[in-house]
């Protein structure tokens, strides 16, 4: 079960109002390589993993992804909460505002809604873990693109958070790689 702790994984106190940047960052909330997809993918795959250590890893990484999701949401929320309607329009968020006001929603940077077809579960640990490694690389690459924006704008506080999240993807990739190797070794040693 999950228990909620009333704090962020990492502090986020953004000084800027910038709905354009928020529109880009929201892709890590509801986009194809974002934190919602990651948490759902791992937390769903874990049920049919062949051993407890892999069930543990997927549970733990999946849970951290939910922490990340909250951090992305916090950045989008803080970047837009003081925005004027004009600023929202100029940022290309008029349609979003019509449907949601300033509420967050699970969409990518183009406003496309989240779909569960972004993720997969095959009841095959090699397929699942390989997908997970790919997912972490795609997330890392996305953070690189977002950092291009925040660095160009010279928003150091945003860049600091994005860089933290990017580094976590690198670590997760490492962990999934270790788990895949261990499963493959076990499989090969049985032959």
């Amino acid at each position, binding site marked *: 079960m999950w228990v909620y702790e*009333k*704090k962020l994984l990492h502090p986020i106190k953004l000084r800027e109002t910038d709905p354009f940047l928020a529109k880009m960052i929201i892709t890590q909330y509801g986009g194809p390589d974002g934190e919602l997809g990651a948490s759902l993918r791992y937390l769903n795959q874990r049920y049919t993993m062949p051993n407890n250590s892999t069930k543990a890893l997927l549970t*733990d990484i999946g849970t951290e992804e939910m922490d990340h999701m909250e951090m992305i949401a*916090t950045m989008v929320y803080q970047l837009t909460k003081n925005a004027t309607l004009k600023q929202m329009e100029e940022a290309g968020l008029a349609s979003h505002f019509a449907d949601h006001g300033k509420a967050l929603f699970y969409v990518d940077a183009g406003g496309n809604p989240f779909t569960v077809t972004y993720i997969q579960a095959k009841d095959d640990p090699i397929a699942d873990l390989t997908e997970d490694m790919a997912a972490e690389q795609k997330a890392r690459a996305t953070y690189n693109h977002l950092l291009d924006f925040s660095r160009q704008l010279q928003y150091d506080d945003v860049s600091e958070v994005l860089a933290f999240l990017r580094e976590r993807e690198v670590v997760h990739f490492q*962990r999934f790689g*270790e788990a895949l190797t261990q499963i493959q070794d076990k499989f090969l040693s049985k032959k």
Partner: protein
Amino acid sequence: MQYVKIKPINNAGVREKSDLLRELMELEFAVVEFTMYLDNHPEDMAALATFRDICKQLQEVYKTYVENYGPLRSDDVIDSDKWLWGEQDFPWDSGM
């Protein structure tokens, strides 16, 4: 995890809220990191020992924070008549 830190203390001799919360965040992040490492390397005795030290330190800081500044989980027992869980600010507003 050894670092020398000057800890701000308020008039009651208790560490400042933001200072405690910052240390709490560091310790909880260390727990997250070590947990997934140990999931893959359960035989690493050194890591396990460090993890236990981190958890002990976390429990102390957590207890001090909650006793002085309010609940972090809804079932944290606080000496207060108020329903602080619902009333105190949420992390996306406070930034912590």
